[in-house]
């Protein structure tokens, strides 16, 4: 009996061991480990575009099985090609997030051709089927929804009915934000105008400060922007007692009094989708877009200055956007030279390609292209 017992014990132990080993093995296999590389064109703590990415990368770092390597201030030259290659060769990265728009062509495309086993998830929405490699993907968000909400709040809060917008370059993405901001404000008060100053490049702190000052001098009392780092602009406006709406990330701590709300990126949504696909060995996600509803963008919490009425109005529009039935760019819409750019009865959904080629400023914008 004792023999049998011992045998039974051994058998049982063996079975137990096998049982313990078996369910764990496939689990371990699924719990693959990957290294993910992030490249930023500016400083990670710029209170703007690069910070919005770095904040999301910090959340990716917490995902199980993920090691994150980061590199900041990588210019759009051979430097970014080499940095991506270094992440692959020196750190073993198998998924790379080149976060600057200008990295895509030719840099990401060149490196992706040489490393076909590595995934490149570029931020900017430029990937086209048949034209670009399948290990490359591109994602982007409809942040003009956030700028529209900025406009609604600014429209309520402005006393002078003059808003200011500091913009980098007159390119479609920037124009779309200026127009959305203006349309949002004019939905509250049709007399409102937005004055635009273009600084010429993405990061020009001195010019941004000058532009902010001259907008304030000309009577604008709410300022917002589309530049890489709104830090200088928000600080300058706060110093002069003027309200601001944020962009890219939250600048609330730079302007505790005048910060109204802000259009922020929420990159963690596309990041997590890409990382999960890579962990599970699913095919590369080549095209990924979304707005407020999909969680690609978000708004900053309202600042102390925002009135109850403004909050109520903005929240109502936001609710419609979240349910997916709000049209920002609908006809009839005129540009600021009086020409019709969207005909009566035409409503462009956010996904419309026409919006990606925007080359006009809407009625109510003071500025020239």
């Amino acid at each position, binding site marked *: 009996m004792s023999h049998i017992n011992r045998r039974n014990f051994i058998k049982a132990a063996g079975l137990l061991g096998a049982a313990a080993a078996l369910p764990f093995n496939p689990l371990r296999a699924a719990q693959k480990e990957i290294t993910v*590389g992030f490249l930023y064109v500016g*400083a*990670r703590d710029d209170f703007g575009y690069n910070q919005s990415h770095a904040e999301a990368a910090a959340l990716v770092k917490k995902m199980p099985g993920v090691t994150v*390597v*980061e*590199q*900041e*201030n*990588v*210019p*759009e*030259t*051979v*430097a970014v090609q*080499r*940095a991506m*290659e*270094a*992440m692959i*060769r*020196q*750190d073993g990265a198998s998924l790379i997030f080149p976060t600057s*728009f*200008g990295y895509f*062509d*030719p840099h990401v495309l060149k490196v992706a051709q040489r490393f076909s086993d590595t995934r490149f998830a570029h931020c*900017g929405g430029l990937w086209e089927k048949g034209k670009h490699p399948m290990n490359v993907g591109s994602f982007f968000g409809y942040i003009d929804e956030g700028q529209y909400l900025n406009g609604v709040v600014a429209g309520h809060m402005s006393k002078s009915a003059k808003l200011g917008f500091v913009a980098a*370059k*007159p*390119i*479609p*993405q920037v124009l779309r934000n200026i127009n959305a901001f203006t349309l949002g404000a004019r939905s509250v008060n049709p007399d409102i105008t937005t004055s635009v100053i273009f600084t*010429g*490049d993405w990061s020009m702190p001195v010019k941004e400060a000058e532009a902010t000052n001259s907008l304030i001098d000309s009577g604008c009392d709410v300022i917002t922007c589309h530049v890489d780092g709104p830090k200088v602009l928000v600080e300058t406006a706060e110093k002069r007692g003027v309200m601001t709406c944020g962009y890219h990330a939250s600048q609330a701590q730079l302007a505790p009094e005048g910060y109204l709300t802000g259009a922020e990126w929420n990159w963690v949504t596309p990041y997590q989708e890409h990382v999960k696909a890579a962990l599970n060995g699913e095919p590369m996600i080549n095209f990924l877009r979304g707005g407020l509803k999909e969680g690609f963008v978000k708004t900053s919490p309202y600042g102390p200055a925002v009135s109850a009425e403004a909050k109520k109005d903005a929240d109502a529009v936001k609710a419609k956007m979240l349910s997916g039935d709000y049209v920002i760019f609908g006809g009839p819409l005129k540009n600021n030279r009086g020409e019709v750019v969207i005909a009566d009865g035409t409503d462009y959904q956010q996904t419309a390609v026409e919006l*990606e*080629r925007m080359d006009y400023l809407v009625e109510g914008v003071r500025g020239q292209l």
Partner: protein
Amino acid sequence: MLKPWLGRAAVLALPALPTLLAMLTTAVLFILFLLIQGQPAWQAGPLVFEGAFGSMFAWENTLMRAAPLMLTALCVALPARAGLIIIGGEGALVLGGLAAAVTPLWLPALPAWPMLIAMGVAAMLAGGLWIGLSGWLRQKRGVNETIGSLLLSYIALAIFRHLVEGPLRDPNSLNKPSTPPLDSGYQIGVISDSFYVHWGLVAGVVTCVLAWVLVRYSVVGFSLRIVGGNPRTPRMLGLPVDRLVLLTCVLGGAAAGLAGMYEVSAVQGSANTALISGYGTAGILVAFAARHNPLGIIVCAILLGGLEASGGLLQRRLGLPDATTLILQGILFINLLAWEALTRRTLDWRLWLRGHWIAAPSSRAGSTEVSHG
């Protein structure tokens, strides 16, 4: 005593002494800086080496970054031979790049080689003209060439931005304004798949060697030494000072313009604001580190390229911010300037060495006696 060949080696190595000392003190100060910041200084040192020269990939990385610096450094070093301090290479580079990018648009379709040569010539003309303007302003209008070239560089950048984002913009480049993309036949590739560095490196090295031959062995080079040494002597000798100064400026600008051409045809594929990435400024550092010696430029450009290549590894392995590399470069530049004061002493030491060590190698005791006598 010591062997005479050692003495000769010491004489040859003397001009490099300030640079070597500068590098040594830079290393010490950088390690101290990291220690004060509570960073792992002892890991950082080997990482700098690994990232710059530790593998074939690291070498490719370093050399690719060094290539444009060799050319932009010449833009500082050649005028410096004539006693000018030109710091506007960035402007010459972007205008050269722009000229190269638009040449295929304005010329009829040509086979690759003639077109590439045309692009190179256009780039060198644009760059040469721009720096030549600084030289002309100095010689004919008394405008300080340092300030003049810097301001002209700002003007060049503004013109570049305006043209790329306005009249010369490809309407299809929506959110990244650029000139129309170069035909793939007019793009310059890499040397080989196993040595993944574009041909700009070869251009940089060859141009530096040519520049060295010019300043070292030609009549022009000899005249330049006189012009750079003293403003009055060459005029007394009847040397064409204005023409010599202009020549160095034009050649320097042409080198920077050529760097722009390679940036367009080997890296970017079109002209856009990514060209404005500080190669011209980094070239100043390289030229001063090399004491304006064209062969020294090759070495120093590789060194700086290596520093930049290793910066990424410092960021990724140790989580150090990018500013670390910038601080390292800053410390290096300050040290180079500080040790520059030693250069005059090295001339004395060289004479002393010649007298004591090499002059009378036949007898040990004789050498000192002879020189004292």
